[in-house]
């Protein structure tokens, strides 16, 4: 669906709601990214359900706000009995549930995941107007902008270091990703982008060493979690490469979901410039 068509759809739904004289009161969100924004935008009385992931602090920054809100696992069968008056979700996730809910005449809006900071603002505005809280959306955007300004002033004048985000399985983010913008906004050059990785890619430990980044950005450890994938980020060779310095750690839930939390990730990275 083109952006224009989507706006038209949002406009129709919001205007029909305006005609009903009310904002949506029983909103269901189908993905972690829309969950978190929804929790920032509207009071919890108006949220009928969020995903299970939103209640887990490993993945969700807003997990505390989910207390008292029912959690679902994405099955249409769980969502229909909630009699939602608006369902929001990310494009490409839960597509079976989305098409079933649409067949059952539920109003479902899906949104593209933002890949730039500008798109994050658009994404926030679109969801803000869909749920009838455009002012709250503008407040969120203003906070974002002030956090980014603060981050930029912290790193102003410092030499540009070469950084790479390194996640389990050697997963890293290159060009055309929000993570790339986050890393650059915090005053780093993104090694993955310079190595020619488009979107996301995997980099072996030997390749990472050979490329010699100054800074390795890893997510904070999840407690009591272990897997072979996670052993990439604690490989002894990484520590040996960094020498005296330690890897830069930021909470995974800041940038797992592309959204307004990106500003917190930028600020956290800027504050850790060594």
């Amino acid at each position: 669906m083109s952006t224009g068509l989507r706006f038209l759809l949002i406009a129709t739904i919001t205007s029909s709601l305006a005609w009903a004289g009310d904002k949506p009161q029983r909103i269901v969100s189908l993905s972690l990214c829309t969950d978190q924004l929804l929790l920032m935008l509207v009071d919890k009385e108006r949220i009928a359900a969020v995903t299970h992931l939103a209640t887990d602090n490993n993945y969700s920054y807003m997990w505390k706000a989910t207390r008292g809100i029912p959690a679902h696992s994405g099955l249409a069968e769980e969502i229909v009995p909630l009699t939602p008056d608006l369902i929001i979700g990310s494009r490409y996730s839960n597509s079976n549930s989305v098409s079933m809910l649409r067949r059952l005449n539920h109003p479902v809006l899906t949104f593209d995941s933002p890949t730039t900071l500008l798109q994050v603002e658009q994404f926030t505005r679109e969801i803000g107007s869909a749920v009838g809280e455009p002012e709250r959306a503008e407040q969120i955007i203003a906070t974002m902008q002030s956090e980014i300004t603060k981050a930029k002033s912290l790193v102003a004048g410092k030499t540009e270091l070469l950084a790479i985000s390194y996640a389990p399985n050697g997963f890293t983010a290159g060009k055309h990703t929000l993570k790339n913008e986050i890393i650059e906004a915090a005053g780093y050059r993104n090694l993955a982008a310079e190595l020619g990785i488009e979107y996301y890619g995997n980099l072996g430990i030997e390749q990472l060493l050979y490329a010699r980044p100054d800074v390795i950005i890893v997510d904070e450890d999840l407690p009591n979690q272990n897997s072979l994938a996670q052993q990439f980020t604690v490989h002894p060779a990484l520590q040996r490469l960094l020498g005296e310095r330690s890897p830069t750690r930021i909470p995974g839930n800041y940038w797992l979901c592309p959204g307004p939390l990106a500003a917190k990730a930028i600020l956290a990275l800027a504050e850790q410039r060594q």
Partner: protein
Amino acid sequence: MNSSIALNSLLLVITLALVVVALHIGPADIDLTVAIADSWQGNNSLQAMIFSEIRLPRSLLAATVGATLGMAGAALQGLLRNPLAGPGLVGVSTCAALGAIIALYFGFSAIAWFAVPIFGMIGAGISVLLIFALAGHNSSIMTLILAGVAVNAVASSLISLALNFAPNPYAMSEMVYWLLGSIANRSFADFSLAIPFMISGWLLILNSGRFLNALSLGEDTAQSLGFNLKLHRSLLIIGVALSVGAAVSVSGNIGFVGLLIPHLLRPLVGHEPGRLLAASGFGGAILVLLADITVQLVSPTQELKLGVITALVGGPFFLYLIIKTRNTLQ
């Protein structure tokens, strides 16, 4: 005896040569002589880092894991007096993987650093006992294979079950690793964790050479030669469990090595099960080193799993063995 020393020396030379070849292979372009010199002098250069933190542990793991699987195959074939026994086919590797999986994904490895190999060894031990109970020590080939199929089936579904319920987002995707095996991205920490157990297992297995020679003449003969069957069998089983459990816990389940290698080498050692043990150790090391060199050359970016290569070689060989022994099966 002299021919045995000659054979083992030859195999040792091939193993060492392959270790050197394996050290040269990797995505980064480094000068190995510089890397070794830097490591030796304690220089923290990039070359030294890649050599000592990444390539050396990987090559050493390929050699020692392979040696374990080859030796365990020879030991099981001698112990069960059955040419189709091997740690993969009778389910020892799968059960070891199950143990390691439970330790890794359910938080036991966070409590005790040695939990993964210990659980692997317990898994391997249980499976050898199960095979013994199901197929007995005088079983037909058919009974052994069927018992192995059953143990493997149960253990691999328990692996799926455990990975499904593991409280970790990466667990399910790592099933391929556990079922097919790989030693990519392993560090010295993994190697030093597994090596003491592997060596203890090897010593127990190698020490049973004379017992296996006697056993090949029949249980009564072995007993009359003064071997305590129960004691020697137990020692051998413990040896297999220790070494295979530790090896699988750092490499996953690399199939067919333990079946293939003893068969290839048996004619060269004059069909003596005792002399086959050490030779199969070297043979296994050679096969896994070759497989690991192959996966790195064939697909450097998205690495194949080792089990794919060993199964491509071992699978047809297994079919050949079945055809050859078909008369015994009927």
